[in-house]
């Protein structure tokens, strides 16, 4: 059991390190085609990472060790996320189950590392990005926790792998109104958390509108590579979680080599499909003004709260 869980965690790690740049490539390529551009091809993020690793990082003269340690911390937090979440299989690691609150706090370590990297550069844009990023992160937190809390009620536990198993065993839960409300709220929270439209525009070149990009402006070489890979991994892991909550079929619940293969294939397909949906959606969305974002988040918070209270009082 323990060996199987470790094996699955390893498979997830290898798969996602490979898959997440591909996911970004697919998202960018679909978007480019829809906008009438040729696009750089789905392997371009991979080539970017390789290129960044073979460059000398240039750091600002007064920056501290944070500029070197922050990116590594972000990457490790994203890797932890991938290892802990139920993506390919739901077998929990011994003593560290995929507890919702632990998962969120692991994610927050990455958020904080990124924000500190932005500040350490000692420039106006880095600070600006960091400040906005933290404001959004602070406001997303209630939605995120409440949404997963709502999803946890039918399962009676905050362990994500058990939540996925419950949904697999009892598909009626998935289309219940409570679950739908919670999923919408969770989707909005994840979009905000991973700096996607309409909260942040990942492909912007205008510094004044940047959130995520402003923080990584000063990073270069392998520092930038870790930051990018870490952010991509986080996006892939959260999309994987979202897709496993919506369509739990294919997830491995009992260890077998064939099941593992099925798990790997299905999660890859699910994530790439969700990536395409995300990309198509983003073509039609404009970035919201920064001070309209709290309204969006307040809306999603209301949905999540409604989901939780409804599941107690109505069900």
């Amino acid at each position, binding site marked *: 059991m323990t060996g199987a869980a470790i094996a699955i965690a390893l498979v997830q790690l290898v798969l996602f390190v490979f898959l997440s740049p591909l996911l970004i490539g697919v998202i960018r390529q679909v978007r480019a085609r829809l906008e009438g551009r040729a696009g750089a091809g789905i392997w371009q993020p991979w080539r970017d990472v390789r290129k960044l690793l073979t460059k000398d990082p240039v750091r600002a003269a007064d920056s501290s060790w944070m500029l070197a340690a922050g990116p590594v911390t972000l990457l490790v937090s994203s890797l932890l996320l991938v290892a802990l979440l139920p993506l390919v299989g739901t077998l929990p690691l011994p003593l560290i189950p995929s507890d919702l609150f632990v998962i969120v706090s692991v994610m927050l370590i990455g958020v904080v590392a990124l924000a500190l990297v932005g500040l350490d550069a000692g420039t106006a844009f880095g600070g600006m990005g960091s400040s906005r990023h933290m404001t959004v992160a*602070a406001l997303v937190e209630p939605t995120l926790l409440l949404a997963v809390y709502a999803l946890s009620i039918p399962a009676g536990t905050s362990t994500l792998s058990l939540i996925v198993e419950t949904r697999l065993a009892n598909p009626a839960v998935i289309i219940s109104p409570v679950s739908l409300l919670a999923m919408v709220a969770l989707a909005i929270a994840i979009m905000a958390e991973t700096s996607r439209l309409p909260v942040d525009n990942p492909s912007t070149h205008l510094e004044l509108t940047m959130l995520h990009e402003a923080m990584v402006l000063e990073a270069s070489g392998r520092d930038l590579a870790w930051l990018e890979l870490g952010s991509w991994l986080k996006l892939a892991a959260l999309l994987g979680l979202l897709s496993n909550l919506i369509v739990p079929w294919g997830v491995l619940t009992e260890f077998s080599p064939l099941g593992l293969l099925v798990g790997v294939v299905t999660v890859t397909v699910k994530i790439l499909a969700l990536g395409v949906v995300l990309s198509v959606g983003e073509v039609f969305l404009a970035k919201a003004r920064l001070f309209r974002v709290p309204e969006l988040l307040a809306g999603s918070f209301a949905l999540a709260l409604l989901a939780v209270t409804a599941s107690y009082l109505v069900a």
Partner: protein
Amino acid sequence: MTALEAGMLGQVLLLALAVTGALLVGTRWRSRVIGTLCALLAAAGIVTGAIALFGGEGSLTIPTALPMDPLVLSPDRLGGLVMMVVSAVGVLASLFGIGSARVASASRTSWVSMAVFLFGMQLVPAATDIVSFLLFWEIMTLGSTALLLAHHATRGTVASAIVWYSAMSQLSFFFVLAGFAVLAAATGGTGFSGLATVDPASWQASLAFVLLLLGFGGKAELVPLHVWVPRVLPEAPGHVAAAMSGAMVNIGVYGALLVCVRLLPNGPAWWGVLLMALGGLSALYGILQASVASNLKVLLAYSTTENMGLVFLGLGASVLLRADDATAAADAALVAALLLMVSHAAFKATLFLGAGAIARSTGEMNLDRLGGLGSRMPWTAATFGAAAMGAAALPVTSGFVAEWMLLQALIHGSRVDGEVVSVTASVAMPLAVAVIALTAGLALLTFVKAYGIAFLARPRSPKATQAREVPVIMRVSLVLGALGVIALGLVPGPLAVAIASAVGPAFAPDVRTVGLAGVDARGIDAVLDPTTFVVLAALLLVPVLIALFASARRHPTRTSPLPWAGGGSRLRPRMQYTATSYAEPLVRVFDDVLRPSRDVEVTHVGESRYLVERVHVEQSVSDVIETRFYRPMLNAAQRFGILARRAQNGSIHRYLSYSFVALLSVLIVVSL
């Protein structure tokens, strides 16, 4: 004589030594000698507390000639735990004080009051009756007030801060006294064991509960009784602020625990709702004010209000869930509240000591003028960073474990075996989760701001440029504090088990140690083992580091004064983001609550409308509760005072006529 009695006598003895020593030893050696004695006094408190926590027996009786129960000092397990926590903070503060106390804060008065303050604080949890409780409570308050007086000669703001502090402490004292009086009247005794016989459902119990809550809430810096905090703590020297904010608030919590666990367990559900509302409000309001504060000590002071709010929220959840018969979750919430209290003591003491170190090195508390201290004060930076992680509830610190436990208790509280326990709980628990989540999010921003602006990037003022690391003894204290934060986060199991035993026998939380000293809350089926977690993270770090070194061997790092910086002008540190600008989006989002006043003054070059010579921006965020709630009351009192002054204008004629009227009325009354 038992070990416990010896421990308490030892504290009395060390107090006497410290006080006489402070009066006798000259300026040159005073801080070293008395600081050491204070540290020993606090260490005696730790030992005594530990003995009591592990079930040691013994009592000290103070004979009195008054017609009431005798004054008995005999800490139970819970008292022992609290005594240990406040004493541990006392040790840190005393050690730090040896290095940091200078001029006014190294005076005779200061060191005498420090010893008295620590002593009073350490013995409040030992009291077993109303009179001794109030006696040590007042010793603690007096000691802390005198400590604050140290700087009143050099800073004008100190006097007004002390007036606020004294007024609010006496208000707290009044509420506590009134609350105990109600209970004493209902039972006819002053011993706590006698008071515990009051029926929690009676109106006396409810009245006493509300009064005591207000009193203890004032000491624990809860909204709306927190107004003294942002005034007093910034005026106190670092080690005093650490002792007040890290240890004294715990006495407020102890008071509330005394009420909810010992005197009036099994209270009605509305007590829990009241506690939760008060705690939730304090948590949100405190962290919101902290997140927009630019003065580091004000920021930390408001963050204490937040953390105490969370403690009371947990306590309230425990009362509410117990009333609804969700015992397992209720017990877990109680353990969470105590974990929060312990972890808060560790990280807040360290943070205030760190702020004291910064103040000593730069003389500056305004974050907008700090920066770049990480390379200049590496020890302070590392310890402050660890404590800030605790305050932001990030793994693997004590703050994270405590908040995790609280959230687990809350989400398991609304249902027992698939049945909804009550409508109140099903609304209160999700709201509480949301409050904690928002609080945690804002705390994250607050401490990223505090650490990032103060320690990273480039210095924003000459004072920050010239900062130097603090002396060894202060570093020792900082490192001990930071180690406490990390250790409690890595091995929370034994502490949780000790807490579970401390709240007994009325409460029996099913908490065990699991894995590598992790915590396993059986009742609510939740497991957390931070050490395994760290091992996993370390394993994941290995391949990353291999890739990093492989890349670093071929591609060394280059430094450049101007890597990108949006095209230029990186050379001016003033163009960095400051603490004020960092919190600006938040000020806008929470405009309605914070009500900031902003003044922008633009000076143009000559006649041009477009070329700007200078922009002056001033922004202040006032405490809404102070301006809306206390100011009107104070104004009313003042108006009354003005009326009274008119009656007493010093004119001899007026006083003669008063006497005449008085005499006349006496004669009339007599003749009737």
